[in-house]
C-alpha cells in the first residue's frame, strides 16, 4: 500500500498517513480520557484528507458522511467524559454513563446499531482506503472500549452486530458492501474477545486484518468492485484457489487461518456456559459462510465460464498470491509446532 502511494506522486497522503498512525498511538497510550479524545480528533482530521479526492462526486459525499458521523460521536464522547469526571464515576462500570461512552465509541467503529453509515461509505472508497477504514480505524475505539465497558450493554450490542452483519450481507452484489457487513459481523466477535482478554483481542484483530489484507490486495490487483466481475475475468487456477481459500478463511472454516481465533473464543464461551451466545455466534457464522460459498461455487466450481478474452495479467504478483494461499492454509497447523 505504501508502494501505491509512493508511485502516484502522493506525498501529502504519506504525510496524513503518518499522522493517522500517530493519532492511534496517542489515543491508546494517554493517561487521561481527554488525551483519548484528542487522539480520536486527530484521527478524524487526518483520515478525511486521505479519502477526499476532489475529482469525483462520490468521494465528496463519502467524506461528508464520514465527517458527520465521526464528529458527532467524538463530541458526544467528550461530553460523557466530562460528566464522568464531574460525577467522579471512575471505577463503577455498570451505569448509564458507561453506556453512553460505549455508544459513542461503537458509533466511531461502525458497529450495530450505529452501522448505517458504514456500508454507504465503504461503497464510495477505493480498496486501499477501505483497508485503512476496516482495520486501522477500529484499533483506537476498541482499545478505549476495553478501558470502561458495560458488560450487559455490550453483550446486547454484540448480538445485534452478529445478526445485522450476517443478514445484511445476503442481498449484496457489491464486493465492498459484502466485506463491510462481514466486518460488522467480525466486530461482534472482536468486542466479545475484548471482554475476555486484551491479548485475545489483539490476536483476533491481527489475524482478521491479515485476512482482510489478503482479500483486499487481491481485489485491488484485479480491480474488481462488483460480484459480476468475478465471473467475467479469465483467472488462472492459482488466483481462483486463493480467492476460495481467503473467503473460506474469513468465514472461519477449520483448516484455514481464520478458524483459530474463533475457536479460542468458542472454547471460552463453552467453558463458562454461555450457551445462548454460542448458539448465536454459530448460526450467524453459518449465514456468512453461506453467502461466501454462494459467490465461490457459481464462479469457480460448477459450470464456470472460461472466457477467451479478458485475460488478467498477474504474473508479477503470483509469488505473493501463492504465499498468501500458503499462509492461509497452513498457519493454523504450523502454529501447533511452535510449542514442540
Amino acid at each position, binding site marked *: 500500500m505504501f508502494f501505491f502511494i509512493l508511485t502516484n506522486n502522493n506525498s501529502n497522503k504519506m504525510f496524513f498517513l503518518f499522522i493517522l498512525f500517530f493519532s492511534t498511538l496517542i489515543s491508546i497510550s494517554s493517561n487521561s480520557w481527554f488525551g483519548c*479524545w*484528542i487522539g480520536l480528533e486527530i484521527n478524524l482530521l487526518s483520515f478525511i484528507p486521505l479519502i477526499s479526492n476532489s475529482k469525483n462526486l*462520490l468521494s*465528496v*459525499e463519502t467524506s461528508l458522511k464520514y465527517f458527520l458521523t465521526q*464528529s*458527532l460521536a467524538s463530541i458526544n464522547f467528550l*461530553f460523557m467524559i466530562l460528566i464522568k469526571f464531574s460525577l467522579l464515576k471512575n471505577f463503577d462500570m455498570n451505569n448509564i454513563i458507561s453506556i453512553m461512552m460505549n455508544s459513542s465509541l461503537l458509533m466511531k467503529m461502525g458497529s450495530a446499531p450505529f452501522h448505517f453509515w458504514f456500508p454507504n461509505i465503504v461503497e464510495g472508497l477505493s480498496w486501499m482506503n477501505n483497508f485503512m477504514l476496516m482495520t486501522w480505524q477500529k484499533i483506537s475505539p476498541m482499545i478505549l472500549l476495553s478501558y470502561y465497558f458495560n458488560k450487559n450493554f455490550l453483550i446486547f450490542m454484540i448480538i445485534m452486530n452478529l445478526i445485522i452483519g450476517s443478514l445484511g450481507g445476503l442481498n449484496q452484489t457489491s464486493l465492498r458492501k459484502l466485506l463491510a457487513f462481514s466486518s460488522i459481523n467480525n466486530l461482534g466477535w472482536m468486542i466479545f474477545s475484548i471482554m475476555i482478554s486484551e491479548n485475545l483481542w489483539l490476536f483476533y484483530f491481527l489475524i482478521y486484518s491479515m485476512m482482510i489484507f489478503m482479500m483486499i490486495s487481491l481485489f485491488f490487483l484485479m480491480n474488481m468492485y462488483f460480484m459480476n466481475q468475478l465471473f467475467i475475468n479469465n483467472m488462472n487456477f492459482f488466483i481462483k484457489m486463493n480467492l476460495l481459500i481467503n473467503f473460506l478463511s474469513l468465514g472461519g472454516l477449520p483448516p484455514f487461518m481464520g478458524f483459530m481465533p474463533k475457536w479460542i473464543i468458542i472454547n471460552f464461551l463453552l467453558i463458562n456456559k454461555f450457551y445462548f451466545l454460542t448458539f448465536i455466534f454459530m448460526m450467524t457464522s453459518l449465514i456468512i459462510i453461506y453467502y461466501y460459498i454462494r459467490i465461490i461455487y457459481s464462479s469457480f466450481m460448477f459450470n464456470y465460464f472460461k472466457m477467451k478474452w479478458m485475460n488478467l495479467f498477474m504474473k508479477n504478483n503470483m509469488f505473493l498470491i501463492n504465499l498468501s494461499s500458503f499462509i492461509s492454509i497452513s498457519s493454523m497447523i504450523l502454529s501447533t509446532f511452535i510449542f514442540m
Partner: protein
Amino acid sequence: MLIYDIWFLFIYMFFLGNLIFVSKNKHLFVVLLSLEFIVLSIFFFFFVLLIFIDYDMYMLMVFLVFSVCEGSLGLSILVSMIRSYGNDYFQSFSML
C-alpha cells in the same frame, strides 16, 4: 444544592444541539452550526468544571484548539460539496 442546578443547563444545551444535528434540514450548514453549538455547550461545561480545580484553564484551551480544527474541517468539506454539487442541499445526495 443550588450550585448543581447549572448542570441541567449543560445537558439541556447538549441535548438540543444533538436534536438539531439529527433533524431533517434542508441545508448542510445547519448541521455544522448545530455541531458548533454542541461545542459551545461543552466549552461552558468545561469552564464551570475547571473553576473547581483552582482556575487551571489550560485544558480548556487545548479543547478549543481541537474543536476549532474540527469546525474548519467541516467547513472545508462544505466548500468541496458546493464546488461539486453547486449547493448544500441534502437532496443532492444520490450516489450512495
